[in-house]
């Protein structure tokens, strides 16, 4: 096994549909202050935080160089600061690289997004596409995901009943997570009767609009004990980008996720993920992605997703006990929210949803529609 990086502190605000009463700067401050207090870390340029990595999105913040709106409140002035504009999980991978390279030994890792600020999330994700070939068609992350949903569901025997089961389970799990967005409990029939947004994706199949912020303190193995007694270790990270145009990709192949996972497994020395990893947190923007990504990380046979749901696979493999992205996290922050769940579980602080002594966890983030880019981290106690 290679070197590892410690997560010594993690703080977050509660996921909410519309935190209109607070600026995202304030949300970040609510995360930073307890980190400083609990760990005693400072911004001292010799012994403290010399580098801050932030995660945010320009279009969702309606401000280019979106980090410039928050660097002051996260202590990023007068020191190193870099922004991750992909899914936040890659910010963790980047922080890990900073530390393992020896460039820094203590890194503050923060992220925010208020989806509620935008008039339409879909209008925003439409801007992720080029102005010539895709954007004029009105495509966005939701309608693009619908292509993948149709193709994958057909191939993997996943039907409307399975999706309903996934949504119901997500909400039940999230109800035990004090940081999760508070959603109405729904029945399978309610899911199946919710209107189609983009067939075969129904309204309740897609994650709801959410605001959230988080912060974590990372450091080298050598310095971990200065900040906490029981750190969670990041032992592996991998990412992979697939082709841009939907037509250039094999959209049911899970190519990028398989690649990202195998790189993370190899770094963390994981040979058999199903056996060695105790919990999996997958960024499921839409219900069909839960079984699909589970196939991608290698805990379900290829195209056996429907059967896996029927056989209670998500509970057996302990997938998305947090409720998942499907219950509500903002765009680009799904990965960090998955890391947060793994962090509580591995430290034994997951309350009602606590697993019995988990040792190893996988957290996953996805950027773009239909899984164009995936990031995977392996976390250990």
């Amino acid at each position, binding site marked *: 096994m290679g070197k590892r990086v410690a997560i010594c502190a993690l703080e977050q605000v509660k996921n909410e549909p519309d935190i*209109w*009463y607070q600026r995202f700067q304030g949300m970040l401050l609510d995360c930073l202050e307890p980190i400083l207090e609990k760990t005693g870390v400072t911004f001292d340029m010799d012994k403290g935080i010399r580098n801050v990595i932030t995660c945010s999105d320009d*279009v969702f913040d*309606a401000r280019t160089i979106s980090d410039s709106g928050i660097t002051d409140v996260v202590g990023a002035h007068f020191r190193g600061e870099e922004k991750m504009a992909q899914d936040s999980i890659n910010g963790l991978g980047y922080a890990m690289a900073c530390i393992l390279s020896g460039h820094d030994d203590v890194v503050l890792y923060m992220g925010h997004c208020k989806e509620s600020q935008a*008039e*339409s999330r*879909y*209008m925003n994700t*439409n801007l992720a596409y080029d*102005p*010539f*070939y*895709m*954007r*004029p*068609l*009105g*495509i*966005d992350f*939701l*309608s693009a995901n*619908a*292509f993948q949903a*149709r*193709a994958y569901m057909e191939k993997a025997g996943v039907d409307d009943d399975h999706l309903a089961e996934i949504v119901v389970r997500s909400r039940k799990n999230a109800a035990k997570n004090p940081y999760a967005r508070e959603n109405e409990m729904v029945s399978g029939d309610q899911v199946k009767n919710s*209107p*189609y*947004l*983009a*067939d*075969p*994706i129904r309204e309740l199949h897609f994650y709801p609009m959410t605001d959230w912020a988080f912060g974590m303190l990372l450091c080298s193995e050598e310095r971990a004990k200065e900040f906490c007694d029981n750190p969670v270790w990041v032992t592996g990270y991998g990412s992979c980008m697939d*082709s841009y*145009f*939907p*037509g*250039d990709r094999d*959209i049911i192949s899970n190519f990028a996720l398989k690649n990202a996972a195998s790189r993370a497994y190899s770094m963390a020395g994981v040979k058999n993920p199903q056996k060695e990893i105790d919990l999996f947190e997958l960024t499921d923007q839409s219900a069909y992605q839960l079984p699909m990504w589970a196939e991608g990380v290698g805990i379900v046979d290829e195209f056996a997703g429907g059967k896996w749901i029927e056989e209670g696979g998500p509970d057996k493999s302990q997938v998305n006990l947090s409720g998942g992205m499907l219950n509500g996290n903002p765009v680009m922050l799904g990965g960090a929210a998955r890391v947060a769940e793994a962090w509580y579980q591995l430290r034994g602080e997951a309350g009602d949803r606590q697993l019995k002594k988990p040792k190893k966890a996988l957290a996953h983030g996805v950027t773009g529609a239909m899984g164009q880019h995936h990031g995977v981290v392996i976390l250990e106690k």
Partner: protein
Amino acid sequence: MKEGFEDSYIVEGKMALPYSYFAGRVGSTFLTTLRDKKKIMGVKCNTCNKVFVPPRQTCERCMEDIRDNWVELKNTGTVTNFTVVRYEDKHMPKKVPYVLAMIHLDGADTPMTHIIEGVKPEKVKIGMRVEAVFADEDTNTIMNIDHFKPVTEKIEVRERADAGGTGAKTYTGEQPETKKGGKPAMSKKVIITAALSGAATMKNQIDSVPYEPKEFAEEAARCYKAGASMVHIHAREENGMPTHDVARIKATHDAIKEKTPELIVNLSSAVGMGKTPEQRITQILEIKPEMASLNTNTMNFSIVDRKTGKIFIDFIFENTFTMLQDFGKGMEENGIKPEVEVYDMGGLDNWKIVAKQGIFSKPYNFNFVWGVAGGMAFRPDLFMVLKNALPEDANYTTCGVGLDEFPAINMSCLSGGHMRVGLEDNIKLPNGELAKGSFELVEWATRICEILGKEIATPDEAREIMGIKK
């Protein structure tokens, strides 16, 4: 209002940023070709041999510069995936619901994303053929194709040679003596019948099966053009169910005759499952077609899975001696020539018994039917046994269900008989592809004539052969 926030302020903002995007040299060529020539261009990587659309300068897999390797694609393609966008938003170019699809253009290797219109969202299917509809005004983007619409396939019929078409060029010289001989006399000209609908072939199997009178008329005209001189009809209701309704059958019959007066229309006296004898014969006697089917024996007539032997629909097709007698008499008295349907030797013998009454006028016309679940499967030797059991002054044609169709009609044509094809019996071409319609099966039947040196009968020649007095 949350407590303590009474005097707080929310500022409404907007990002509205005009931009000028350079389309790139590759993109510019693509977009201007769309605009000026209404052509969709792809670029080919010569290393992996893939043709990409939208175009790009470099193959991302081979890292090869492909900017100059333009390939002209067709404006048609196949839908490989789609969604119906049902949520309204400002970035949508169309009113919702609209269909976003991945379309594999003919000549490309990667499907492109675009919009489908001109079809109800619930009718869009993977595999559907679509064609580009170009925008009237330049948009500088992919929207120079305004949308794709379902292909209105141009139906081209291989036209019968005697009508000056490019179809079967058949031997018109003297027939050798050996080919003339036999009992009954071999017909020199071959009558091709197109059975357009039957009672069980539905649009969910093949879209070109007609339900509406207009559809029957159009398909019958195509069949005539291809070489058929007679069409056999089971009229359908709007929902596709076979009907005994006189008005509907008459409308269907008349629509065919109006569009193609030359054609012989042969109406079914079987109609469909569960019809009473009265419902079956009344329509014939009222409409008085030139010919009608006359069935010869009560038999199983079921729908089964031929691979597993599983029975889906079990049905007894009732044709008692009395019905054979009464239907036959009614037809002959009204100048309707019966086409005697023979499902096995027993049926032929039944007809022979009733024929003793002197009901039937010469020449007699028989149809050997193969492959019905409840009847006999096609066998060449059995075919000859039936043929040899026919009375003097008899013509025979044949039809076969599914895979029996082409072997049976080959045998008939070869042995001096006539041929029936059509979607009632079979929906696939000999190569296994779905036929474009009954007319395409007629085209294949004309090829048999071509090979065997047989001439194709015109409707008037067919009338003369079968003894139909116009």
